[in-house]
């Protein structure tokens, strides 16, 4: 029986920039920042109220996971905003929207009432987009 999701990966163009975005703009906590050799690190962050879910900020680099060509293709797709990685919840979407906007976060969709709640869409610094929701 599967109990829970513990890790999820978000492919990012630059880990240092992603660190700044997720920690200093979104307010996420660093879970693990482990050195994995020169220029490589295992970096995971978690939403403040969900410390058990590690979001791995995975750099797209040529190596075991990507060939040179596929890495470049992946970087292009991420930059173009092809991937939506998930839904974040908040207690007050208008306050969260105002705060993130003031920190320079780019929104694809302003908060809008839908039949399932209020929803907005924002992009991370790489181009990945997320839904931001407030339940009714």
């Amino acid at each position: 029986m599967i109990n829970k999701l513990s890790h999820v990966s978000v492919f990012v163009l630059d880990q240092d920039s992603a660190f700044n975005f997720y920690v200093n703009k979104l307010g996420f906590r660093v879970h693990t920042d482990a050195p994995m050799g020169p220029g490589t690190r295992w970096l995971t962050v978690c939403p403040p109220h969900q410390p058990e879910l590690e979001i791995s900020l995975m750099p797209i680099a040529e190596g075991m996971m990507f060939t040179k060509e596929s890495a470049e293709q992946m970087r292009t797709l991420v930059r173009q905003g092809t991937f939506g990685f998930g839904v974040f919840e908040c207690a007050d979407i208008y306050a969260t929207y105002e705060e993130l906007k003031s920190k320079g976060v780019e929104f694809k969709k302003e908060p809008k009432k839908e039949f399932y709640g209020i929803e907005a869409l924002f992009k991370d610094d790489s181009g990945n987009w997320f839904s931001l929701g407030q339940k009714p």
Partner: protein
Amino acid sequence: MVEFVYPKVYLYRRIVQAKLYMDQHYMEPIDLNNIADEALFSKFHFIRLFKKSYGKTPHQYLTAVRLEKAKLLLQTGASVIEVCFSIGFESISSFTGLFKTTLGVTPSAYRLQQTRILEEVQAVPLKFVPNCFAEAKGWTKKSNFQEAHI
């Protein structure tokens, strides 16, 4: 470009400004009356609106921010005294007491616990990476990452 406007936008902006002020000035003596005045609210109206947005009163929120900063500083190995004063507390005993009541551990015990974890992360990083990721990245082929730094 037309600015996006939602109900009570002016109230939200003032509440968010007050929250961001606390995020940035948590180490200073902050008078919540001043913040309420600055936001052009009566104190009680301000507290009610702030709690509606953030689930905490401004005072509870400021305390939470200070304790969160304390945790980060303790992780860097800073002393309890240094941390206490750098986050805006004026008494070691009140800081230590609040820290323990909130987090269930004293600041010095937390610092020791975190220092050990960070040392382990540096010494045995693979212990903190699920094997599927480590294999996909080719990290399991290296026996000692410390050697790679030399």
